[in-house]
């Protein structure tokens, strides 16, 4: 058993945290710079742009590294967003705390002041929360555009913009930097298309005409006039009573997308599909459990789309079965576990001490495995099952025999897909085929080969995408494509991040004003707290949470520690500004932040200042490119719980490591440690 002191002034753990976190600087904010991760043993490389993937690729043999990993994984498991913020703040606060230690601030004072400071900030920023309901109202009403062919509600909601010409000119003025590509100019009004042509970028000549970047025009993509779209793959079909056809969530999705345009569109179509279904069934408006992804590397990213049903990859032989089965409704079976002879349910121990005696050899019976194969196939054909979805693996031989018998067996199906098919088709999942009874089999499944919107043939090497549907199936598959296979993981990660952001926004029922508004208020608030305590420093210490033990010591050091807390947010804002090119250097960013802080302080109420800035789109407008004017055009919102939890987890980790003064290494490596170069650091018990 070995024991090592962690030098208190130059705390090793905090230094490790700070250096690990520095790798994630560029992953912050809406404009992330991706990183290449190269596996030296296989020479394979992968593009990453999330803190989780970064942490997975780093060497985390140190205890602090392990804890950082655990913290980031926990945030990822719970929220799927906020990990980069967490990672960044871990680094920033580790550095700030190290500086406090340099100034001889006692550990207990740092711990109590910082955690109280963060609590106070979290309370303060509650004034920057806005309910999802209000966001929708505001965003939807401000986005409605005139459309002569549309219903009356349009005109009511947008009487400020009765003249389409004026409205569109206004747009031209406010967002000159955006490229506007009309999807199908002939389908719009004359005025629209004329103006659009004026704004068209060189991309307009491309055959695939789409609207991008401007959410004014993206409304067109979902408008009933663009009926050329394949209804199974693009946003919606039919008309809605909503004034702006975002189904209450589309604009929120955009505001949460932080410039993640392609995924925002996918999310919007999920919302549209689920809204349509919710209207029929009255169920939840946005259900994350009914979404799965299917990754198709090799296709350009523009082919990404949302498909009702389950899209998955099968072998060409199996695809041939699908052609044979046609579009008949099929009987479907769901199995949990593997579909192999040796598989037994969890908790079953196979006896090893059983010997089977064969009295009269029967030569006709063939190999022992054949019995199982024949029985299984027999069961499937007798109950006329044509489609089997298996949670685990499928025996290769059975797969072949099934293909020969025109039965499609799909393995490695996620649990939520099984549940959705069970619900829609009436199938009851079984563990063994021998359990099969008539009541277990579902019906009405339909199979087809998945084709891209333009009917382009899939060339994905050995696998063919197929789509499985059942009437009443609520499942949606996000088909994610990218021409660069190394980006596949990244595309999928970014998709889920956005989906979860909307999910959490709805679960919280509220969102934060985004684009740094919350962080600026935290920064200004913690600085104000520091100034306050400076004034009070000579007065008698007040009793605080940790009781008499910590109250006395913390009062004196409060200003220094609160400044350290503030520096976390200041560095955060500066890094985001640099990443989004709102500032060319850290220095410039700091100056800008100082400028805003001063103005906020002068204005008397920092929260009022931040609110005003957000309303007028001063400092906090979102989107990757800074634009002038039009605040509504690119309003950005953030998740409330995910963000505050990321802060809290980051601070908790830093304080946890800060309070650690020693490592105790147990286990059989004592001899290795004794002989290691660092052996002088260790003491042995």
């Amino acid at each position, binding site marked *: *058993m070995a024991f090592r002191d962690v030098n208190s002034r130059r705390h090793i753990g905090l230094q490790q945290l700070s250096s690990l976190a520095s790798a994630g600087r560029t992953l912050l904010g809406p404009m992330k710079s991706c990183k290449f991760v190269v596996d030296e043993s296989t020479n394979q490389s992968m593009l990453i742009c999330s803190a989780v993937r970064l942490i997975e690729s780093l060497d985390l043999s140190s*205890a602090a590294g*392990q*804890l950082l990993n*655990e*913290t980031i994984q*926990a945030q990822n*498991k719970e929220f799927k967003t906020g990990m980069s913020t967490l990672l960044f703040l871990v680094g920033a606060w580790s550095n700030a705390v190290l500086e406090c230690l340099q100034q001889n601030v*006692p*550990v*207990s004072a740092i*711990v109590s002041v910082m955690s*109280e400071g963060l*609590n106070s900030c979290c309370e303060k920023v509650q004034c920057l929360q806005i309910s999802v309901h209000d966001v929708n109202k505001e965003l939807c009403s401000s986005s409605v555009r005139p459309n002569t062919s549309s219903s009356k509600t349009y005109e009511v909601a947008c009487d400020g913009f009765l003249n389409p010409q004026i409205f569109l000119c206004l747009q031209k003025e406010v967002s000159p930097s955006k490229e506007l590509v009309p999807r199908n100019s002939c389908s719009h009004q004359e005025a629209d298309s004329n103006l659009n042509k004026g704004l068209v970028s060189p991309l307009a000549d491309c055959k695939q005409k789409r609207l991008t970047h401007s959410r004014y025009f993206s409304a067109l993509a979902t408008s009933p006039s663009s009926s050329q779209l394949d209804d199974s793959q693009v946003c919606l079909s039919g008309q809605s009573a909503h004034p702006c056809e975002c189904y209450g969530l589309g604009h929120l999705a955009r505001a949460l997308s932080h410039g993640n345009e392609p995924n925002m569109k996918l999310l919007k179509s999920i919302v549209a599909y689920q809204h349509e279904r919710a209207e029929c069934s009255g169920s939840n408006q946005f259900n994350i459990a009914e979404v799965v992804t299917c990754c198709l590397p090799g296709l350009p990213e523009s082919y990404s789309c949302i498909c009702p049903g389950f899209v998955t990859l099968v072998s060409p032989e199996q695809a041939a079965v699908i052609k044979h089965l046609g579009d008949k409704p099929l009987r479907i079976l769901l199995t*949990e576990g593997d579909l192999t002879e040796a598989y037994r*349910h969890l*908790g*079953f*121990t*196979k*006896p090893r*001490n*059983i*010997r*089977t*005696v*064969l*009295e009269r050899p029967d030569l006709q019976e063939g190999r022992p495995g054949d019995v199982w194969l024949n029985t299984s196939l027999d069961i499937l054909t007798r109950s006329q099952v044509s489609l089997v979805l298996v949670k685990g693996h499928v025996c290769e031989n059975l797969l072949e025999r099934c293909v020969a018998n025109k039965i499609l067996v799909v393995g490695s199906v996620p649990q939520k897909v*099984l*549940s959705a098919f069970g*619900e829609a088709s009436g199938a*009851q*999942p079984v*563990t*063994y085929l021998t*359990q099969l009874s008539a009541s277990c089999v579902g019906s009405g499944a339909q199979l087809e080969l998945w084709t891209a919107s333009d009917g382009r043939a899939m060339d994905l090497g050995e696998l063919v995408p197929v789509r499985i549907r059942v009437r009443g199936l609520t499942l949606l598959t996000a088909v994610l494509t990218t021409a660069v296979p190394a980006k596949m993981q990244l595309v999928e990660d970014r998709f889920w991040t956005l989906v979860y952001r909307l999910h959490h926004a709805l679960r919280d029922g509220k969102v934060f004003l985004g684009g740094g508004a919350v962080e600026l208020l935290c920064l200004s608030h913690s600085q104000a707290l520091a100034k306050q305590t400076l004034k009070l420093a000579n007065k*008698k*210490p007040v*009793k605080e*949470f*940790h*009781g*008499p*033990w*910590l109250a*006395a*010591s913390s009062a004196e050091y409060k200003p220094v520690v609160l400044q350290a807390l503030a520096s976390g947010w200041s560095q955060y804002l500066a890094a985001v500004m640099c990443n989004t090119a709102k500032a060319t250097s850290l220095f410039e960013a700091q100056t800008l932040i100082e400028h805003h802080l001063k103005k906020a302080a002068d204005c008397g109420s920092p929260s009022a200042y931040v609110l005003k800035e957000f309303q007028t789109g001063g400092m906090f407008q979102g989107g990757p490119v800074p634009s002038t004017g039009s605040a509504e055009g690119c309003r950005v919102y953030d998740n409330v719980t995910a963000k505050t*939890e990321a802060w*809290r*987890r980051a601070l*908790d980790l830093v304080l*946890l490591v800060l*309070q*650690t*003064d*020693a490592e*105790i290494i*147990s*286990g059989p490596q004592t001899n290795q440690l004794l002989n290691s170069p660092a052996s002088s650091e260790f003491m042995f*018990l």
Partner: protein
Amino acid sequence: MSRLEAKKPSLFISDPLTKDAVSQSLSLLNRILKSCYGPAGRLKQLHNGVGGYVCITSQSSAILGRLSVSHPVLKVLTASVQNHVARFSDCGLFTAILCCSLIENFKSLPVPSCTVIKISKDLLSLCTDYLKSEACGCRVSVDFSNLKTLLCLVRSVLTSKPACMLNATEVDHLTMLIVKAFMFTIPCHVETKAVLGKCVTVPVKGRRVLDSTVLPGLLIETPEIQFAKLLSVKRISSDAIKIALFCVSMSGDLFNPEEGMITVHHGISLEMSELNQLLNVGKQLVNDEVGLVVCQKVIHPSLKQYLKENQVMVVDRAGLSVMEPLSQMTGSKPIASIHSFSPSCYGSLKDVCTKSFGSKHFVHLIPNDTVVCSLVLCNRNETTWDELKRACETAEHVLQLTIKEPLALLGGGCTESHLASYIRYKTCSLSTSSFKDADYSQTQYQLIADAFCSSLESVACSLSHDDEILTDTVYGHCWLVPSGFPSVSNWSDLLSKCGCGINSNTQNLNWRLLRPHFGSPTPQSCPEEPSVKAADLLTLDCFAAKYSGLQVAVETANLILDLKCIIEDQN
């Protein structure tokens, strides 16, 4: 052919305590434990050095459990502290630090160890008599009709574990939950012998502490697919569901498969016959109108299917930890065989429903009479959750010990310093005549008493890691000042409350620095009992745990001092 090896001779070490290596290890251990003590204690990272799980803790149970000490002297020490912790949960660090300090202090005295042992036993009984007496100035009685003292006890346990990473709101929330959970476990109708129920901790890691909650009855985790399909349960009356509880595996694997070889004829499947037996069990359960089957281990999917088709709810893989409370709660006897069981084993439940916390799904079993409850415990990550779980279990145990002996000791170091000044006063006021018959001199007695008291004081001083500790001469309590200040003549400017929070700085209490060195000034009077005993936010310690800790520490120190030689078998 086996190889014979000559036996190695045993190793004989005489006077182990005089060896340098032992002293060094002992003082290192003391340093580690002292640095962990109290709400501002420093944390330890315990890991295996090869990238495994990292445990961050300041609790003796976690540290001593993972510490592998090699020297027999240290082994004796850690073993007796661990034994204390197993029985009382709390005051492990107190015991260990006091024991180490006693050994270190006694060892350096020019007094034969037998005399040391004799005198320290005397001093121990002086302490224990005082603590048990009505006149004791450092204890408060616990009034169970008022929650305040109970809340203080629990809060003190939680705040003394900094690695739980709780803020004030979270501490308050959990304190309420733990007391509430404890209340659930007290039976409503007490007959001759009252037995406390049980609180089962349900882990929900990754969520906020404020999401924690307490529910009456039991929660058993169940996979999602089953969750979606829980049918309406067969009831025998509107508020009664018959439940069968199995502690034997029903997965259909063969009974006792490890012994000998079984030969079967081709075409006979033991698996099938086992399954048939299980289905017979199923038939019996259905006939007996059982509505819920809970199995500690796995149930065969075919049996599950059969039971579900007959409207019997099935929960398997319940785990060992819920078996005892489940049996207590439902009055059912766990069935240990699938071959024969009588209907008298069945118990009953009031209701069953489902609950979700985060991504986890549970079956919630609601009993008629609540003596069992579930504490759904959340914390943000694994390390801090583990620490919090230990802290909550300690707090629950403290409440259980307190109901047996409704007393609490003042915390925050005040009991230790008060006790030390009481002993100092008592031993100084002894007349020379009382040593006439003793086989030791008064000087020897004074030396030992001084060492004893400074050991107690050094435990109190361990509470401070950045600050100075003072003691007052009126009550003998502990006070804390930040270390940065130059030695001030007027301490009262800096002090607000004493360690336990019972005394506030309203009068000049004549403070002095508390430093665990020998030769502290002799108190002029016996330390007083604080006049007010009803402050709101007192720091309180468990009486039973500290009382035992004190005894264990002194007796273990005596045992170690008494060691003359160690004989080590080297084979």
